[in-house]
């Protein structure tokens, strides 16, 4: 049974204007995600995974980026043609993103609680002075409850205390979990996870990935999971897209892509993996 198309990237092309001239970075990329689905995006460094995802969030500055073609349809509406206002309303509440590096993705001078609260209160608002839908006090309470709930689900110890801590007081693993919780505080429909925790220890990374997958499934959130680790890709996504030099070279059910690769490039990548038996 076909589910609803949540996101559809059609023939997306992106170029960058640099000192050396205009460089085409994303070339005719097609990706889609259905309601409740988890897909993975793999590819070597620089293949354009992050640029594609950030395009969905409209987080790439233009210039230097130039959208040379294609469309990004979120529930049928083209994100690339939306106004700033509309985008701001989407961000965080409909589509959320988890960033690659936990060390730099948290604002160092505010407590975790404050940062979560800000998102809960002001997400989608035009300005901090705008009138809030509910009483500020009530919303702050709600924000706190929701944050604690998410922290618990991410197996973070001592969630209440965590709210009063600053990023530098947390370990890398904890930060990465906090970042995930932040992205989910407004319960988006679609989560873009850009290589969460690659800079962390293998064991920590493995458990974070497991927790993330569980949480997303529990909350019925769709997810695009980016990684360059083929093993991880296989374990997490139902479907997989393989990217190379800004193009999608192979896509399909993860089982198929990894066990029966159709494309030479995918095969080469798989061969390069060290075998343990």
């Amino acid at each position, binding site marked *: 049974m076909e589910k609803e198309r949540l996101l559809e990237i059609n023939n997306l092309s992106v170029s960058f204007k640099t000192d050396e001239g205009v460089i085409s970075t994303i070339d005719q990329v097609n990706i889609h995600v259905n309601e409740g689905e988890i897909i993975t995006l793999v590819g070597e460094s620089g293949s354009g995974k992050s640029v594609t995802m950030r395009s969905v969030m409209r987080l790439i500055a233009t210039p230097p980026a130039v959208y040379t073609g294609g469309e990004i349809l979120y529930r049928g509406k083209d994100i690339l043609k939306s106004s700033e206002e509309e985008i701001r309303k989407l961000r965080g509440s409909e589509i959320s993103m988890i960033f690659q590096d936990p060390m730099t993705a948290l604002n160092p001078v505010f407590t975790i609680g404050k940062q979560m609260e800000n998102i809960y209160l002001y997400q989608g608002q035009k300005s901090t002075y705008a009138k809030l839908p509910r009483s500020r006090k009530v919303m702050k309470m709600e924000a706190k409850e929701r944050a604690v709930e998410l922290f618990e689900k991410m197996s973070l110890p001592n969630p209440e205390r965590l709210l009063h801590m600053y990023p530098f007081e947390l370990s890398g693993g904890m930060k990465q979990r906090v970042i995930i919780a932040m992205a989910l505080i407004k319960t988006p429909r679609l989560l873009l996870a850009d290589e969460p925790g690659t800079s962390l220890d293998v064991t920590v990374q493995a458990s974070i990935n497991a927790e993330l997958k569980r949480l997303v499934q529990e909350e019925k959130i769709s997810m695009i999971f980016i990684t360059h680790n083929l093993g*991880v890709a296989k374990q997490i996504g139902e479907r997989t897209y393989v990217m190379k030099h800004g193009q999608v070279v192979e896509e399909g059910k993860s089982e198929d892509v990894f066990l029966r690769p159709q494309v030479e490039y995918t095969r080469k990548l798989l061969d390069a993996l060290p075998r343990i038996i």
Partner: protein
Amino acid sequence: MKEPMIEFQNVQKFFQLSQNGFGRTRTMVKAVNEVSFTVPRGQTFAVIGESGSGKTTMAKMLMKFEDLTGGLIRVDGQDISKIKGKEALKAYRRKVQIVHQDPTSSLNPRKTIKEIIEEPLIVHGMGTRSERLQRVRELIQVVDLPLSYLDRYPHMLSGGQKQRVGIARAIALNSKLIILDEPTSALDVSVQSKVMDLLKKIQKEFQLTYFFITHDLALVKNFADYVIIMEKGALVEEGKTEQLFHNPRNLYTKNLLKAIPVIGEEEQRFLDRIQIEDTTYSIQGG
């Protein structure tokens, strides 16, 4: 039997933290605590452990960048704590070389590849200018890079190429012991396998001993002869690679094995066999 290349006997290294000027209150970090092992010649000896478990500290002690807090390290039969004075140190460092984790920061961005590879030769006063140049050319061919790269600066090279330059420099002095501190963790899988192949080739060619630090168990499986596992400064498990994979005993080792992301069904089954009795595995992180 030949003398081992490296011998660690109850080696300890403690760091003092938060030294304030007044009180005597000090916190100790036991970076390496009572570790003993021997590394035979001509083999690859792998050290595995999570971040902060003391791997790099061991490498630093081997390089004589750090003194020991306790115990003894012998390299090539020589107690390295006895090496004193500039000249002796220089001579020792001809024997031991290191390849670092991050290929970008391990090359001086303001020097050409030629200058970088040539540096050890100059420092040790080896050969005339033209002889040195000859040697640099040889070396760059050993690591499969085109000669034309000699005049390039590091930023014009890809990660894998930079790591090759690092390797060329490490073998320039004909050192027999090379420390590899996570040499491929910053590289893509496909590049990683090429660099590892190169390292294997060179090892065979020059009979090198590798002290191989990593946190990637899968890599170890294909590359190392012997493995030790470190956890919080202590050696928690050791053994021949095969043995360790088939019969892990330590909880942490098991967790590490379970965390290897694999593709094949067979491999998955292999990992699934590992039983973890204790399920209260808590969160850790750097």
